[in-house]
């Protein structure tokens, strides 16, 4: 088959810009998702139903509905409600963060609950507060176990970020769609996009292996 490299080449500057935006949006969403997920995860683990119920509902909603629909709701519903106008990048980061938080919350929960109960009891018996117990005894051990699951989640997030092309956030998929429309070619845009995502997830994977070894 003929693969027309010159049209990829012509779109290279735009794809490069798209890649930067993908990296930026994903990185910000990962960080927000991690912080928000911690709160959601702790909320779900709470023994007080007025914390655990809403957080449980949150997790069910964001894991149980398509990200595609979530992006549309955030872009055309939530963001205009707050800003009075749409903003694709704000909506993309919001949707990806909210979605990711539902998954990281479960990773936190599973990680924390996997730590032997005796660890918590030993720390409490020494007079540590529940917060100190979490901070100095449970989390350091749990985080180590969470890293592979977080790695998975980050990689999924980077790939899922391609869905925000839907709301015209000019990232990798958006520009490869533009390439596809202009030349009516299928494989140049898709394979190029796939390769760019592969590069991103490969680098992230390397980074995670490095972090896991250092801990």
């Amino acid at each position: 088959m003929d693969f027309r490299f010159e049209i990829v080449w012509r779109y290279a500057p735009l794809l490069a810009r798209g890649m930067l935006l993908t990296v930026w949006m994903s990185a910000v969403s990962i960080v927000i998702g991690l912080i928000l997920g911690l709160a959601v995860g702790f909320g779900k683990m709470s023994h007080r139903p007025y914390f655990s119920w809403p957080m449980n509902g949150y997790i069910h909603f964001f894991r149980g509905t398509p990200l595609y629909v979530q992006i549309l709701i955030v872009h055309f519903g939530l963001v205009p409600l707050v800003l009075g106008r749409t903003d694709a990048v704000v909506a993309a980061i919001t949707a990806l963060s909210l979605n990711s938080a539902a998954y990281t919350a479960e990773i936190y929960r599973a990680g924390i609950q996997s730590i032997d109960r005796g660890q918590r009891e030993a720390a409490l018996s020494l007079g540590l507060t529940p917060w100190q117990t979490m901070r100095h005894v449970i989390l350091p051990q749990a985080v180590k176990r969470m890293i592979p699951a977080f790695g998975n989640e980050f990689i999924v997030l980077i790939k899922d970020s391609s869905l925000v092309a839907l709301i015209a956030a000019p990232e990798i998929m958006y520009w490869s769609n533009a390439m596809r429309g202009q030349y009516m070619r299928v494989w140049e845009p898709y394979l190029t996009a796939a390769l760019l995502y592969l590069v991103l997830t490969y680098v992230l994977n390397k980074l995670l292996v490095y972090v896991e070894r250092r801990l």
Partner: protein
Amino acid sequence: MGKRNRWLMLAAAVLLLAAVVGCGSNDKNGGEKTYKIATDASYAPMEMMDKDQIVGFDIDFLAAVMKEAGLSYKVVNVGWDALMNSLLNGGGGEYDAAISAVSITSDREQSYDFTVPYFESTNMILTKEGSGIKSATDLVGKKVAVQGATTADTLMSGIMGQGSADLKRFDSNALALLELDNNGVDAVVADIAVVGEYVRNNPDKHYEGIVDRTNFASEFYGILLPTDSELKAKLDPAIKKVIESGEYAAIYEKWLGKKPDTAPLLKPE
């Protein structure tokens, strides 16, 4: 695994993907051939689904043309990617042609053939009343939404710059219009039929449609063919005949609610 090995595996994976791409089925049946025509039935009123039926201007027009040419055919809704992939590289894929409101552009002619033009597409600006926008050039510096891969996209990419952050391309006109409703853009550029219908149906939103004959040069739709298709010789005369007869005007009026100006379609090239 060594570093070199990993790169080799990466390259192998890409090649594998590339190899899969070239494959398509190649069934030719004997006797009278039934041509399979692909469409992406998601662009009203040109082609769309009415429950499980494919309907629209293109579908009725194609029926008239195939009758005129004396060919039997079948239209299948396959979506944009399958449509393109089947006709790329001289065809040989499952489909013999595609009708899907495809604009004839030089970029596309590098990979496909087109029949003679059968439809004139004019774009229009949809904006809020009193926005001060009078022509397409007023849109520079403003935010504009279009449906990607349409003539509106091509035109506005030309005017605003292809990489412009102010030009937002959506998958459908419906989303582009929603973006305007939510103040994400100052205007939508779309086909005259789309804009006209939206203004008519939403009087409470106080939108207006602006025609700009100078900047929005007409674009023409053609039936999409693989390069060097034998069909071009059969379809071109049939298309001209259908347009010259009253049949074209009747179909046009049925789907677009007005009479066509066929002069640009019939002028000698």
